[in-house]
Structure formats: C-alpha cells, structure tokens
C-alpha cells in the first residue's frame, strides 16, 4: 500500500501491522492531548503541584528528555567536527531522537506555564540575569538547528528524492552540515548548561545551590558534560529497541562500540567532577548555610541516600565501568545493561536537581514537601513518549535512517 515510499530494497512490515502499532501509540497520544487540553483550558489546578512544590513531573521529563536527547549534538560534534566518520551510520538516528526530545521539551514548556499565551514574554521581556531566559533562547535556536539537520533526511525519502530540487537541496545541505553541527554543539553547551544553572543559582535553596565560575554555577558545566556523556547511551538504547522490534541488525558493532566507548569515558570524567562537586557541597557549601548533609536525606518518607546511590553508583559508576572496558562493552547483555542504566542515571540526576530541590524544608519550622503527580500530569508526560514512538517508527519506515541496513540484512 505504501511500498512506493519505503526505501528501496528495505524490508518493512505490512502496512496494516504498522498501522495497528501506530494506532496503539496514537491512543496514548490522544490521552495525553486530552490531558494537555484540560491543563490549557482549566488551568494548572489539574495538576498536583502546589505553592511548595511548583515544579512537577513534566518538568523533570523536560529536563530528562533534553539530557538524553543530548546524543544528537554530541554525536554530530564527534562526526562532523572531530571527524569520527563511522558515526555517520548512527547520526541519523541521533538526529531523529534529538528532534523528538527537543520538540517534546518545547511542548512540555508550553503546557507547564500558567499563561501559555504569554509564553513569548520570555523573549520580549527577557531578563538577562535569568538562567531560564538563556534556556529559552538556546533551546529554541537549537531546535531550529535540529530541524535543519532533520530536513536532509526527510528529503531522502524515496519519493521526495525523485524531485530534482529536493535531491540537490538534500545533497547541498549535507555538504554544509558541519557548520550546523558545530552551531548545534555550541548552542547545546549553553542550553544544557543553563538548565543546570536553573537549579545551581538558587541561593535560597541550599540543596541546589552551588558555587561556580563567574556567573555559572558548577551545575552549569555538569549538566552539559552529563548530557554529552549520557546522551549516546539513550541513542544506543533506542537503537537496540528498534533492532529488537524489527528483528534486524541496523548498525554495525564497531560503530556501536565506538560510541559506547566514548560515552563510557565521558561518563567516567563526568563522574569524577560530579563526585567532587557532591563532596564539596556536602562538606563545605551546605554546612556554611547551616545544613548537615544528612538533613537532605532523612526525616521524610521518600528521599534517602538510596537516590544518591542510584544516581552515582547504579546510573554512573556501573555503566561507566562496563562501557570503558572492551570485553564488557562487547558483551551484548552487559552493553544493554550499561546503556539502560546510563539513561536512567542521567534521568535520576535531573529528578534530583529539579524535583528533589523542592522537597527539603529551608526554614527551620517548615516541613518536607512531597508530591505525587495527577493523572493529567502522567498523561502529558507519557504523551512525548508515544509521540516519539510514532515519529521514530515513521522515520524508520519511510526514511533511510540506517545507512548500513541494506548491507547488514542482505539475503
């Protein structure tokens, strides 16, 4: 039915099967859109947020998808700027994932604000001292770069490619892609960093506050580094999921191992910085503000040292160790364990730096603020996941996302 659109010689499931899969994800999207509509029409009283807990589940999702979408800018940087050519075989997937993640992040921001029609005020009345202003500018600009990076892949669709203008446009865009990859990396450094700065500058919140360099708290640099380090883990996780569903090998092992190895070393260096940051905060920063380290991890029903362990050890040291050791990363099961743990690790970090910040009391006579999301928040947070499944499915079916697919699956 849609065979004319499918890349030449590529094998895809029948259209009805594909349509059923898309319909299932579509139902989840509709559920999310309904919840989103409720938030827009009835207001944020549809959530379980309150004046103590002003950031909700979807803000965590926002930061998490931006972090795990970091594979796009970092893989682009490695391929186009550092010249690691073999990564051309996975860069398309990284770009599609990046596009999904960043478009989701922008959608989440549009749901999150109390007056969505005034969203443009962040550009019009910009406060140059605010990290959130920097986030808005860099995020929007980087999303534009991602669109530019995505367009050539779309134009390579079998039907579109037959149109000479599109064929040449795609070809020429590929030619100048290094410029956009470099621009994307530059912008990403700032929007990832400023997202880290959002928490780090909160000097009224000792759990989040960090000293830093000039106007940038250490979290600024840690967020950029962690997105570059862990982003590829998510790219590889999605690759493995797509390979599992399609029952095909889509990218050669040497490409996967190269990206995994780089990710491993990046996570290792990040962890060194993160551990130093945590120790300094625990021993110097927090006590100088009157807080014991344990005051942030006790006397409440949810946050204990387990979350620090989960972030640093389970989601950091273990994946880093697996990915930097050749024998381990070339073991398929250990590799999957590492990339999944890595993805979870950075997501936990974002939870800690956004949602946990709201929880501990600051005034001595105040109480812990714990929060659980409403169904509307869950639905709007699941919405980007279902949307991502649909977009990646469409891209896989109709676009030449994996250049090595034909070679690896020749009969």
């Amino acid at each position, binding site marked *: 039915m849609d065979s004319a659109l499918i890349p030449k010689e590529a094998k895809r499931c029948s259209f009805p099967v594909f349509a059923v899969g898309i319909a299932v994800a579509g139902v989840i999207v509709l559920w999310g859109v309904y919840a989103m509509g409720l938030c827009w029409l009835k207001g944020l009283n549809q959530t379980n947020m309150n004046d103590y807990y002003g950031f909700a589940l979807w803000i965590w999702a926002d930061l998490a998808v931006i972090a795990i979408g970091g594979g796009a800018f970092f893989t682009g940087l490695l391929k186009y700027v550092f010249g690691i050519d073999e990564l051309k075989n996975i860069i398309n997937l990284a770009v599609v994932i990046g596009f999904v993640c960043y478009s989701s992040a922008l959608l989440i921001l549009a749901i999150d604000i109390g007056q*969505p029609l005034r969203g443009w005020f962040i550009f019009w009345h910009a406060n140059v001292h605010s990290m959130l202003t920097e986030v808005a500018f860099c995020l929007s600009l980087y999303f534009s770069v991602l669109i530019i990076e995505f367009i050539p892949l779309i134009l390579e669709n079998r039907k579109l490619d037959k149109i000479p203008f599109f064929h040449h446009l795609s070809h020429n865009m590929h030619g100048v892609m290094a410029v956009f990859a470099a621009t994307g990396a530059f912008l990403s450094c700032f929007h990832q960093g400023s997202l880290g700065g959002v928490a780090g500058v909160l000097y*009224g919140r*000792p759990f989040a506050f960090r000293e830093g360099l000039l106007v940038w708290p250490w979290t600024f640099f840690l967020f950029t580094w962690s997105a570059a380090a862990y982003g590829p883990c998510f790219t590889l996780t999605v690759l493995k999921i797509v390979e599992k569903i399609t029952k095909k090998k889509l990218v050669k092992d040497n490409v996967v191992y190269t990206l995994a190895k780089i990710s491993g070393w990046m996570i290792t260096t990040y962890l060194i910085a993160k551990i130093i940051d945590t120790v300094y905060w625990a021993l110097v920063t927090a006590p100088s503000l009157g807080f014991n380290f344990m005051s942030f991890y006790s006397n409440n029903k949810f946050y204990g040292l387990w979350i620090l362990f989960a972030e640093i050890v389970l989601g950091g040291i273990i994946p880093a160790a697996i990915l930097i050791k050749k024998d381990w990363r070339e073991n398929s099961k250990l590799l999957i364990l590492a990339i999944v743990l890595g993805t979870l690790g950075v997501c936990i970090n974002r939870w800690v730096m956004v949602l946990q910040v709201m929880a501990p009391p600051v005034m*001595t006579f105040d109480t812990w603020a714990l929060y659980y999301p409403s169904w509307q928040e869950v639905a709007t947070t699941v919405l980007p996941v279902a949307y991502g499944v649909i977009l990646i499915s469409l891209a896989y079916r109709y676009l030449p996302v994996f250049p090595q697919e034909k070679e690896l699956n020749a009969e």
Partner: protein
Amino acid sequence: MIKKHNKAKAHKFGMVIDLDKCTGCGSCMVACMSENNVPFKENETNKKDSITWMHVYRLTNGKSFPDTEICYIPRPCMHCGGKGDHGHSPCVSVCPATATDYDYTTGIVSQIYTRCFGCRYCMAACPYHARYFNWWDPIWPSGMEKTLSPDVSPRMRGVVEKCSFCFHRYQAAKDTAYFEEREDITEDEYQTACAQACPANAIVFGDLNNSEHEVYKLVKPDPYHGGRPKEPKAFRLLERLGTNPKVYYISEREWVRKAGDNYVKGKEKDHKKHNTE
C-alpha cells in the same frame, strides 16, 4: 509644584515584628487579604495551595509540659535585597520575563501580574514560600466583588502573586505629598494593612534608611552588612543564605531567635557569634 521630587533620598522600607507581642490572632492575615483582594477557595483545607501573602507560622520550643513555649511568626514577603544587597533577590534574579523587579528607590520587590506568564521559577527560588500561584480563577461570592479594593488589581489564573508591602498605599501617600507640595512622605502616611491591623502592635513598618523611624530604632540595621541588625534581640529569617530580607523579628527568647536560621549540629554556637559579630 515640587521640582526636586526626583532627588529625594532612596527609601528602604522594611518591617519589624516583635514575636513576644504576637498572639497569633491572624488579624494581619485577614487585613492583608482584604486590603489586597487576595482570592480564596471554597475549601481552604489544603494550605499548600491557599494564597496568604501574610502567613502566620506556629512553632514550639519542642519541650513537653510545663516547659512548652509557643511562638507565632507572621511571614510576609521579605523583599530581599539579595547578596550584597544589590537588588538581586532570589526571585528577581531568576524571573525570565522581568515580571518581578527590585525598586531601588523603595527597596520593594514588585510583581507585575500582567507580565508574569506563570513559570513559577521565582517560587522555587524563594526559601520563605512567600510567593503564591493562582491555580484557580479568582472567584468571590456573589456581591462580595463590590467590597474589593479599587486600588489593587485582582490577579488572573496562572500568575504568581505575593505581598507588595501595600505598595498602593505608598503611591497614595506620595500623591498626597505631591499635591501638598511636600518633598517626602511621613512615617505614618505609609503603613501596611497588617501593621495597622495588629491589635498587639507587634508589627512596625517604616523606612530602614531613616534613623527617625521606629523600625530603624528597633533593629539598628547595619548598612555595611546588608542591613543585618545591630540590635542583639533582633534577627532575620535565614540570614546565612545571604538573601538580606527587609523583615526583622525581635524576641527576648533565645530559642525563638535560634529558630530563625539553620545551624549544623554541634555548631549551634554559630548562632550567637553570627548575631553579635
């Protein structure tokens, strides 16, 4: 006409609350809500999404009967001067749309409701929980809208609001002074609703830069340390964070003064050192 009105010395309006006088009656909260058209819900059970610009906290010394002592702490917006007292309050410095601003001529942190787009970053930044989000549309019982103050604009759903130190009263006082060709306003011309409503006279309001004003005499703010009180019985909430609040508290009781800030276990002596250095 006054031609020199722009050259008036900068004010630094602030509040001193005597916690030994406060009975926790809540008059300040009621007066504030009435004065500032603060919206309320039909069911106010959940205090964490109720809007109370002035909020009275209750704390105890943690001792059992008969040594139990109670203290009530009224908490308006602290109108922080920020680190170094340069106006970079925790909330002002983070607002992405400049919807909250620091007025260097009064020291008051404003909130521009029509510019706020409801990101709530300022709420996350405020350690005092002095900022409130309008989760619902403001709805008053039928007929009650006629009692709203015409001097204060009601806020719409989806924006943040907070105590303004009854700034509209300052504007009215300035208008009067201007009309009467006076350069400046007097102490009693500009008083907040909570200060006037307090039956125990626990709340005093005035200009911390004016040595004639009661607030100055009560706490003796040190301009070289962001306004830290020289008066040993006075303290500010969370002084160690460097927020430089303009709301001071006074108490004879040491446990109350100590409750104003956090101290690492074993280093409680920092409390005395901090207040006297």
